[in-house]
């Protein structure tokens, strides 16, 4: 028998569908919401409603934004010739936080995944090509994840971009800062050694 009232059970079930949440965490969140002040819970509900109503993708780079063009694409100080291609917005945020990239982005909104039926038409590859007509692109930085799908997507982009004048580069592979060699997997070690540079 379910010990919770139907409304609470329904909320737990819906929360447990969110990525990274199991039933236990969903129950914890639901209980926390029950105990929270009305003002906080209503504010959260309003935020979720506004998220659905106001957030859209940038018409240029497909990053999430409230405006037709995101803050990065609208920033005149950015290097417009350099485009960093990432899988999703979370990757874009990670690179932005590093402060290492001063150019613009292109968010693919996914990677090639044959078993899920995700091909080039299901992600924003066509839109990347359209940018060559409207922008003067000098470099494309492929920053997809070094997973099987991310690697294959990067190689696919490399092949279809070879007819364009832009320089195509790939982010480096290697040991993370503060990492420990003895705990590093052999593929990462092998690639780190292959990609070594003069010190």
């Amino acid at each position, binding site marked *: 028998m379910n010990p919770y009232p139907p409304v609470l059970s329904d909320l737990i079930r819906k929360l447990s569908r969110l990525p990274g949440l199991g039933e*236990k965490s969903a129950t914890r969140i639901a209980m926390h919401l029950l105990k929270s002040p009305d003002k906080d819970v209503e504010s959260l509900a309003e935020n979720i409603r506004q998220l659905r109503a106001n957030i859209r993708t940038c018409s240029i780079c497909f990053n999430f934004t409230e405006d037709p063009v995101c803050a990065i694409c609208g920033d005149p100080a950015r290097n417009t010739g350099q485009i960093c291609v990432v899988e999703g917005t979370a990757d874009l945020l990670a690179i932005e936080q590093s402060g290492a990239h001063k150019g613009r982005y292109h968010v693919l909104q996914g990677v090639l995944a044959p078993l899920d*039926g995700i091909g080039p038409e299901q992600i924003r590859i066509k839109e990347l090509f359209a940018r060559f007509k409207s922008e003067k692109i000098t470099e494309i930085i492929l920053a997809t994840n070094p997973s*099987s799908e991310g690697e294959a997507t990067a190689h696919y982009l490399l092949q279809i971009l070879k007819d364009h004048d832009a320089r195509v580069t790939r982010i480096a592979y290697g040991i993370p800062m503060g990492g420990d060699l003895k705990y590093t997997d052999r593929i990462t070690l092998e690639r780190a050694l292959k990609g070594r540079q003069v010190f």
Partner: protein
Amino acid sequence: MKRFETDAIVLTTCDYGESDRLVTFHSAACGKLRGIAKGARRSKKRFANVFEPSSLVRVQCREKNSFTWIEGCTLTQAYLPMRSDIEKWAYAALFSEIVLGMVPEGEPLAASFFLHKETLQRLERDKDPQHVLLLALLRFQSLMGYMAALDECEICRRALKTSPKWFWHPARGKLICADHFYPDRSYIALDTGTLALIQYMRTIPLEKTWRLRMRQEMKAPLLGGLLDWFRYQTRREIQSVKVIEQILPSWGISSSIVGSAPVRHAPLQNECRYRTL
């Protein structure tokens, strides 16, 4: 509580619960194997780089309460060059999808595992990946017990060598001679040589299979027929074919692998040949 260790190829992975991963393998010891890797999404040390699709791994499992828990996993071969060739990578995914749909869970079928392993090795280094895929699928169909005898007409019992033209329905396993053929898109037109080659392939060891050479014009109709067989058996579409349809035209390669060609008739003038390298 039973513990075991086996060689396996990663087929798919998906998130499970808060930090776990549900991984499906094609294993040597127990056919299709589904296990939960506890904390795999959180820990980058315990399961780093081991659950990438089409990787060969050595997996340690524990069975408890009808669940399989993955206790450890070591990468044996990642087939990295395949990731830099989208065609080979997509063919590996297509073969994995067919294995996923056809290999039963928990039933040991070592021959199909070794075929999968050999297919990945061949795809990695062969210059004609489409041919590797075709041979692998023919061998797989035969291994799974779905390939008909292919030695006589199903209607008149006429022997293979007495007619140059034959029509094969891979999905239903029917073989009929030209005299009994009626126009039907699901049949593949084949010559006696190709059929003899397929029969010969069933009798030879796996390592010799890759030496066989099909006629170029036979590859597309045969692949299409084998994909129809999979669709017929599983009653579902093949997701990776949709991706291959999109990828191959941009490569400048004909999208002939896709089973959407209206009639898969191939010219019958020349006999197919096989050669040993």
